[in-house]
């Protein structure tokens, strides 16, 4: 069964460093997302991406964050200058379409620890 794949599975970084999290969405999907889950808390929406541009973003997704689809398969989340509070599990997700009836498939996550 096709799946969303993410790398790295775990990254430890120093505060202030840049981090890039990588994702390969399911191949025929057109909508891509990033969510995060701080340890023990609920899953939170960060951003959605369609047709090579951001279509929606949350208030968490400030100027420190950016997303890119550098080629036909990868979808990346960059955090420019990491803060301690950025420590979380970051999930990439994708779907064929949007709205009603479309299942959103999640990757296994990238666990980011900022020290």
């Amino acid at each position, binding site marked *: 069964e096709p799946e*969303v794949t993410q790398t790295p599975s775990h990254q430890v970084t120093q505060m202030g460093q840049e981090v890039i999290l990588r994702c390969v969405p399911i191949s025929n999907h057109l*909508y891509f*997302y990033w*969510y995060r889950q701080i340890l023990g*808390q*609920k*899953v*939170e*929406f960060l951003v*959605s991406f*369609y047709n090579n541009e951001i*279509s*929606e973003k*949350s208030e968490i997704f400030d100027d420190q964050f950016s997303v890119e689809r550098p080629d036909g398969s990868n979808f990346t989340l960059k955090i420019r200058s990491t803060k301690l509070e950025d420590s979380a599990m970051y*999930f990439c997700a994708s779907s064929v379409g*949007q*709205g*009603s*009836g*479309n*299942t*959103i*498939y*999640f*990757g*296994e*996550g990238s*666990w980011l620890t900022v020290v």
Partner: protein
Amino acid sequence: ELKVEQNPLFLSMQEGKNYTIYCNYSTTSDRLYWYRQDPGKSLESLFVLLSNGAVKQEGRLMASLDTKARLSTLHITAAVHDLSATYFCALGAGAQKLVFGQGTRLTINP
């Protein structure tokens, strides 16, 4: 502000018993999802519910949706140990975004 509230947040039950997880939400939506998450793992899609009265079943899990009450339920029948996980409901908010509940951590004891 859109709110999605699950209860209970923690549930410990014995194998063979039945129980229900509740998901209340504060505003109308055209879709509600249930996901399962094993520790340190991804979110596995279980059900997508689209309309009032929708009921879906897979094995020992059954999900239903009451849009008038703004309530979805996930019912577990004759629980077995391998259903132990955290279960999330998530509401479609707009075309693309999901708003998740807090999750219900389910532990099934032999």
